[in-house]
């Protein structure tokens, strides 16, 4: 290890110099500071604290727009991803990858296309979640905790040092734990503990893996690890890890994989999800599914793929099958659910498994063209964004039903379309977006993923089609049972949307159409001429 350090001490190219000092720190810490303020000033007038919380939450969109403008300079049409794996250069960076530091910790942030996209998604979804939770009890504390989660998620998307990254990763859990436990449904207690224990259980393995990496290389900075691979070849990390023991490279890979797989979640590490999503309060469910579930996929891109390319290739046959299981069994399990929230939760498993499928199929591919890889990669990124929009909207819609009637069973309603046409229209659009109807956003990303996967593993794309069918089945079942048929007794209580509720749904609905009809609008944001 000590023999290796001098090599690292040489200046290795890690990317651009900081263009906008503080921008990334502001992005992360504004919501955190806002959240702490609300938690401390919990005697504040509820309306004032709500508005304050909303303003703090909206800053992400504002700073995100600023970051977009800076990133725009790099727009181009070069290939999206590089094979063999390599971390993309970071356009905006803060702090630096210093070589000698206490336990490898340094304050190093960076933004690339993936983080930009997820920051923007957070910027759109987080205020929407707050608006959706306008009427909760003790809004000061609820909003404060939501803001803390928001800041932690942004930290995950922007951190370039593993320990910093891990800090944010764990930090996102605890506010969510309290949100679920204190504001959740009748089974919230159990769900909250399950959520935290399961996720921490996964993370522990990841931490061990990174301890090994630190022991082997003396750094846990993503950019530095990537630079190391650039200079000494992609298998340098494995060689260094193998010095610690023959099985260590694979164990380290598995450790990271388990940590991420629980978060996404990947089949079969998913059973915490339906319970958690179902018991969480609406705003928290929306944030969980739209943002926190993306942290896992993001981790695959940020950590797993650049550092463990070889092991990923070895494990791919198994991982592809697990992703397919998520795609197909997720969709079909949703068909059996009678609790609408659980149904949409299962649909999340299905949708995110498409992302995993694309990643595993393409990153492990031995055949296939650059076009296949680009298509799959773009599809994964878009799918993260699109799933965020549609799943958040759907959870909100179920929240509307629950808010009016206290019920959310598949068979509790009927004929809602007659009493609440506006609500029906919004919910229908979100549903068709989620089932991948062309013209709406979901189709674009799913098509790109299927196209990429088909290019390298045609049979996998064919099997995944079953997931498309299952999705159509359970959504149309949902639609038919809840909105069609004669108006049931409970349905009569479903008043149509209020202005605030329209305000929650309208922006995401507009985005669904924009991305569906003009996908280049989003794609050009994540394309760099330097990739």
């Amino acid at each position, binding site marked *: 290890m000590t023999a290796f350090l001098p090599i690292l001490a040489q200046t290795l190219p890690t990317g651009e110099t900081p263009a906008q000092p503080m921008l990334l720190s502001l992005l992360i810490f504004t919501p955190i500071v806002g959240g702490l303020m609300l938690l401390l000033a919990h005697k504040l007038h509820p309306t004032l604290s709500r508005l304050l919380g909303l303003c703090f939450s909206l800053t992400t969109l504002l700073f995100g727009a600023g970051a977009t403008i800076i990133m725009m300079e790099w727009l181009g049409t070069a*290939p999206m991803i590089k094979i063999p794996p390599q971390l993309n250069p970071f356009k905006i960076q803060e702090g630096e990858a210093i070589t000698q530091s206490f336990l490898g910790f340094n304050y190093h942030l960076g933004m690339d296309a993936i983080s930009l996209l997820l920051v923007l998604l957070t910027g759109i979804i987080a205020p929407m979640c707050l608006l959706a939770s306008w009427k909760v009890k003790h809004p000061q504390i609820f909003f404060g905790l939501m803001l803390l989660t928001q800041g932690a998620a942004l930290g995950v998307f922007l951190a370039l040092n593993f320990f910093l990254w891990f800090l944010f990763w764990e930090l996102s859990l605890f506010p969510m734990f309290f949100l679920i436990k204190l504001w959740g449904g009748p089974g919230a207690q159990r769900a909250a503990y399950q959520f935290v224990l399961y996720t921490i259980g996964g993370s522990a393995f990841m931490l061990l893996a990174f301890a090994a990496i630190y022991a082997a290389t003396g750094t846990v900075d993503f950019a530095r690890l990537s630079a190391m691979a650039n200079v000494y070849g992609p298998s340098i990390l494995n060689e260094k890890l193998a010095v610690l023991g023959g099985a260590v490279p694979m164990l380290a890979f598995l450790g990271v994989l388990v940590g991420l797989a629980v978060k996404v979640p990947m089949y079969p590490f998913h*059973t915490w999800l339906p319970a958690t999503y179902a018991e969480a309060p609406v705003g928290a469910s929306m944030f969980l599914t739209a943002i926190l579930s993306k942290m896992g996929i993001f981790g695959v891109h940020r950590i797993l793929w650049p550092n463990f390319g070889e092991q990923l290739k070895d494990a791919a046959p198994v991982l592809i099958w697990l992703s397919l299981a998520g795609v197909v069994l997720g969709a079909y399990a949703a068909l059996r*659910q009678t609790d609408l929230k659980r149904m949409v939760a299962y649909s999340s498993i299905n949708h995110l498994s498409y992302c995993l499928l694309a990643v595993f199929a393409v990153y492990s591919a031995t055949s296939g063209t650059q*076009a296949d890889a680009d298509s799959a990669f773009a599809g994964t990124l878009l799918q993260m964004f699109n799933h965020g929009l549609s799943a958040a909207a759907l959870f909100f819609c179920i929240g509307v039903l629950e808010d009016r009637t206290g019920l959310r069973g598949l068979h509790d309603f009927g004929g809602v379309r007659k009493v609440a046409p506006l609500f029906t229209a919004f919910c229908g659009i979100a549903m068709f977006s989620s089932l991948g109807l062309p013209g709406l956003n979901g189709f674009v990303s799913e098509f790109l993923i*299927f*196209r990429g996967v088909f290019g390298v593993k045609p049979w996998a794309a064919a099997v995944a089609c079953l997931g498309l*069918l299952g999705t159509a089945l359970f959504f149309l079942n949902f*639609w*038919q049972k809840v909105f069609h048929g004669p108006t049931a007794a409970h349905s009569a209580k479903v008043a149509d949307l209020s202005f605030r509720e329209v305000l929650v749904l309208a922006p995401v609905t507009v985005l669904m159409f924009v991305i569906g009809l003009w996908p280049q609008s989003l*794609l050009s944001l994540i394309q760099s001429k330097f990739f």
Partner: protein
Amino acid sequence: MTFPEHLWLIPALPLLAALVGAFTPRAQRKISSAAALLAMAASFGVACAALSSALAQPAAHQVSNFTWMAVGQFNLQFGFLLDPLGAFMAVMVTFVGFLIFLFSTGYMRDDENYAKFFCYLSLFAAAMLGLLVSNSLLLTFLCWEIVGLASYLLIGFWFHKPEAAAAAKKAFITTRVGDLGFLLGLLWLDSALHTQLFYNNGVGFLETAALDYLAVALPCGLLVSSAIGLLLFCGAVGKSGQFPLHVWLPDAMEGPTPVSALIHAATMVAAGVFLMARIFPLLSPDALTVVATIGAITALLGAVIAVTQNDIKRVLAFSTVSQLGYMMLAIGVGCPEAAIFHLLTHAFFKALLFLGAGSVIFAAHHEQDMRFMGGLAPRMKITFATFAIGMMALAGVPFLFSGFWSKEAILHGAHAWPTSPLPFYIGLVAVVLTAFYMTRLMANVFFGAPRSHAAEDAKENSWVMTLPLALLAVCAVLLGFLGTPAWPWLQAQLTGTEISSAPDFAKIFEGPGLLATSIVLVALGLGAGWAVYGFQKRATASEPDPLEKKFPRAWAALEHRLYFDELYAATVFRLNNALAFVADALDRWVIDQAVCFVGKLGEFLGFINKDIDEQGLNAGFDATAGKIRDTAGAYSSAQTGEAHGYLRVLALGFVALVILVAVLSC
């Protein structure tokens, strides 16, 4: 002028009307229908201009392409294509569409969601027209799915009826099964050829270079092109109600009748045939054999089942299934131009028949069962006359009616097919059956005595409903003359070949007595129909059908549509439910239990750990702690808490210290 650049207008205008309709408040509902009618009329104008531009060079494929999205090395192209095939279809859809929209203003007059209805209709028209002018298989797929959505919304338009809601879902799911095949075909095509464009000045996938690449350069290229063709055909099977995915089409009749006329007779269901005609150059002989087989089976199946149905719309629905089978058969035997000819004539006369049925249903207070009708001919003269023309066109009554000529073209093609004579014979059998069940329908609906109050009270409808009938009836006659063997102008335009300006009537009677055969068969069907249903008319609604009395078991089987629904319920649905059950049970009973076990294991370890701590380690600790506590107790007794005592000790200590220091320093 290059016309293709303006083709986008054809779908864009109805789309605009759909947007207007979506935001029309209920009170101003006329705005919605006016916008829809206006948009269709304007689109019709543009489509006519496009047609005349296409006919100027019928062999050319004029295109206008653009990139829809591009990421890295990957891109997806959209485009518009102008050729006679698309242009004829666009003119037909806009014209028939306009008439059906006009009819709907009367038919849907009393519906509270009138504005929404026209919004959905316009959305449908936009997607359908987009499909027709598309030059990209991806754009076609996109429109194809939106057409499916519009169909879903319109079948379930009366969503408060559980049957309508169920039928809408069934239609969407069944067609989606086929569409997944379409999607896979599209993906495969794009992976193999890296283009989605039909024509692109030599590099589109329907052009020689790509086809040669598939046939020669690519290993197993013919197999690949067969596979792609068949996967795309899956989509067409779903959309065009072909066996074995035909089950949704009859149920789709739960929608309002104008919807049935527009979508489930004239336009959308023909999209599958259109798609096959469009990608015809790609289809290998093997793929075509499959297409012909499926088409023949469907043609026969639909016709046989149609004989036994009692709901007037369902008879027409099965007749549509059967006629679509004919068209597929024509594609399969290598005559796409005959298929399109039949598609066009069928669109007019089937729209006419459906609207006629709608007129009857509207007049009979939404009674759809033929057993409760009867005697409507004198009460609804215009409807009767026009319906009769439609019926004769469908049955293929010789010379005057368009259906005769287009069916003749298909039979000629099937007869000339070298692979197998079966499709030809099946086509002939279906001719008899078609004439037979249409005679049955006419006799039951229009002749005899009325068998219900609704039928007795029936009155002719207003002009908005009868005018479209009359115009469609005129077309149902005239259109046939564009494609007679004497002067096959339409076919020549579609294939881009030259044609002499003067008709050659001798050609009609060429060939091995085909014409005579089919005339005899039509006469046979009509005669048999009249013999069974005409001479002795149904007297009451409850009496069984004459054929039912003779062949009760066969009748029951056919009446239940040969138990296809039951078969699917017992197999596909059960399999589906089983998969759902397994997925759910796996989670609940296997994975969750495993997780709980791991949790319990952790708890158990913790428990053991605790025991060791308490019994082993803590015991020692306790002992030590006790000792410490005793000592501390002794010390603590010194801690009195009195300041004076402390000061005293402090002073003593200080004195002692001073003494000690003094002693030591000495």
